[in-house]
């Protein structure tokens, strides 16, 4: 009777408490902090200063560089992984023998924590004893090692490469699952009608995969900044000279290295607003596709 009505609420109460303590409260406190001048090492620095931090952020060239890098990184990486992932999924779908083994092999990069991937590529691209320079030197393509991670022109591409290497398997797996679950009749009908492989892909397969593509893109877009943090911290540290600095690493630098907690809180709050806004936009696009 009465207790039966309230019983479900009791069951989810631990989760709610956890959510409040670990997510809601820190989020609200962090938002409150962003309106102060709190500096961890300066006693009596918890003073209310209104929107001053946000005003400063808008005038901070390093912030705009980090924002630009974050967007550039996300756009390039997500789209590349999308295309490559789809391509690999189509190929794997066609593979007649050893599909299971191939699938497992292709999924291996996804299983590593980003920290290990970062360390691996930091070694791979190293100027003194990295594998890539070693190969190029041995083949006499270059006569002195290239500092892939320290040149402004190559630093961002190498970090993107590491991310694409790690996360394309995710897209591949999602699309492969999608392809395997597609109904066969439309495809057979298209074959009978004499459609070319490209036409079959463009007009039959792609539309049916559309919801899946949006979901995969949404997940990856929200995830890109978070995973990239590990890669960038290990491979380039945000350098050289902000060339690979993204919002996450910039927040870390300000809040943890410089002890400017309030400023860091403001940056991460802006980051959250942008991320959530983008996710809402993508979700709307996804809903539009449904009839």
């Amino acid at each position, binding site marked *: 009777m009465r207790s039966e009505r309230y019983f479900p609420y009791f069951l989810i109460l631990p989760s709610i408490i956890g959510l409040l303590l670990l997510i809601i409260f820190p989020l609200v406190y962090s938002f409150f902090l962003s309106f102060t001048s709190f500096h961890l090492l300066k006693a009596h620095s918890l003073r209310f200063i209104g929107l001053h931090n946000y005003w400063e952020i808008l005038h901070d060239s390093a912030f705009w560089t980090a924002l630009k890098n974050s967007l550039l990184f996300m756009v390039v990486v997500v789209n590349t992984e999308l295309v490559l992932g789809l391509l690999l999924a189509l190929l794997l779908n066609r593979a007649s023998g050893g599909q299971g083994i191939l699938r497992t092999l292709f999924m291996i990069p996804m299983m590593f924590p980003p920290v290990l991937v970062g360390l691996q590529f930091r070694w791979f691209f190293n100027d003194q004893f990295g594998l890539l320079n070693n190969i190029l030197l041995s083949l006499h393509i270059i006569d002195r090692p290239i500092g892939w991670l*320290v*040149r402004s022109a190559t630093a961002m591409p190498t970090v993107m490469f590491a991310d694409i290497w790690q996360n394309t398997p995710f897209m591949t797996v999602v699309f492969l699952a999608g392809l395997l679950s597609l109904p066969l009749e439309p495809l057979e009908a298209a074959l009978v009608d004499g459609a070319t492989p490209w036409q079959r892909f463009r007009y039959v397969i792609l539309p049916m995969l559309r919801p899946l593509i949006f979901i995969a893109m949404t997940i990856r877009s929200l995830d890109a900044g978070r995973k990239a943090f590990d890669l960038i911290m290990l491979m380039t540290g945000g350098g050289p000279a902000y060339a690979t600095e993204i919002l996450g690493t910039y927040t870390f630098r300000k809040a943890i290295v*410089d002890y400017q907690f309030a400023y860091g809180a403001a940056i991460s709050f802006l980051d959250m607003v942008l991320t959530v806004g983008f996710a809402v936009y993508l979700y709307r696009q996804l809903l539009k596709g449904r009839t």
Partner: protein
Amino acid sequence: MGRRGSFAGLGLGLGLLLLVVLFTAFSLSAQEKKPFEGVVLNAYFIGGGAYEKLYTKIPEFEQQTGAKVNIAAKLSHFELNKRVAQEFASGGDIDVISTHTTFAPGQKDFLLPLNEYLTPEDLKDFTPSTIDASTVNGQLIMLPRHTDVRIMYYRTDLFEDPKEKEAFKAKYGYDLHPPTNWQELLDVAEFFTRPPDLYGFVFTGGEEPLVGTFYELLLSAGGNFFDEEGNVIFNQEPGQKALQLLVDLYYNKKVTPEGVPNYRWDEVAKAFRDGLIAFYFDWPGWYTLMKDPKESKVAGKFGLAPYPVGPAGYAKIWGGSHGFAVARYTKNPEAAVALIKFLTSGENLYFEAREGGFLPTSISAYQRIKEDAAKTGDPLDLKRLELLEQELAGYVPPPKIPEYQEIVSAIWPELQKSLVEGRDVKVSLDIAAEKVRKILGK
């Protein structure tokens, strides 16, 4: 009847025994009342390998004073500083910390000034430059433990090779020797650059290590970060010359490995140990590792030399001392001060230097390790200590302002932009100076 009686007898016996024990204990403790009996000190220390040998002496302190030292954390300085900052901010129970002349000014708000707890007699045995570096606005905020200053390591097999000497003389017109000024530094580095197996020079190209290196060169060019009134002056000519030297080495003449912007202390030391570099500047602590043939390809093939002088005619060297400080809000200031005095006594600093190869700030300890070095049979051991002694007398810590870490964070990317893209040094320095003015003006 029997049982009751034996119980009573047992009880009486135990009671008597207890009385005797208590009486003895009381009378003993009444004779030796230790000064800090019952005091518990919470200590947050730097951890890792050689640093921890000194802490094995703490039981002696506990025995002498009756205090109990609880080492709440042993971490690297990066971790330790964050942990200590959190404890200070949250009002935690913290008494003694490891600190460093580079970090202490930033922690000043939370450190106890030691002047009123120490006499000039207490400070007599410390190398004066280290006490100077530990003093901010007239207040002594830490007791120094051991000091790091850099020195030149160079490859004797290259510099003393007759064929190299001949070729160098033919090209540059003077005898080959470890460089004694900046022009020679460029010449020698260029001469020995034969990629990919050998580069003339290497340095740390990012973050605080880069700023420290720039700082030394800035001072040796006659400049500084700030003038007496606190105005920003590092973007003037001395600063431009300093940054230009680094840009010439890395970007224009390419006499260093290309990965330098990502190199920190470990990477430059490894590069030299692997035989990749002709000469460079590094901390003296690497010495034992360098001499070990199992770890180093240059064991037995390197020598030590003083810094080359800058355009101002002298060489000023950036350095720092590790040390101990007392928390401002400690409940037991006398005990805490006694602990840090104990840890930095001449005897204990000699012990630490002997075990860990450090350069003690204690004058007496330094003399003793020099005497030990004279007996090892390797003349380089003593020469190293003598060269370092000269440097220690006049080393310069970074500006003792709390905003120093923030300033480092703000300016190193601008310096790096010149290194990596060849941006004009005046432009980079002006941008950096503007950022620093904003930080200080805040």
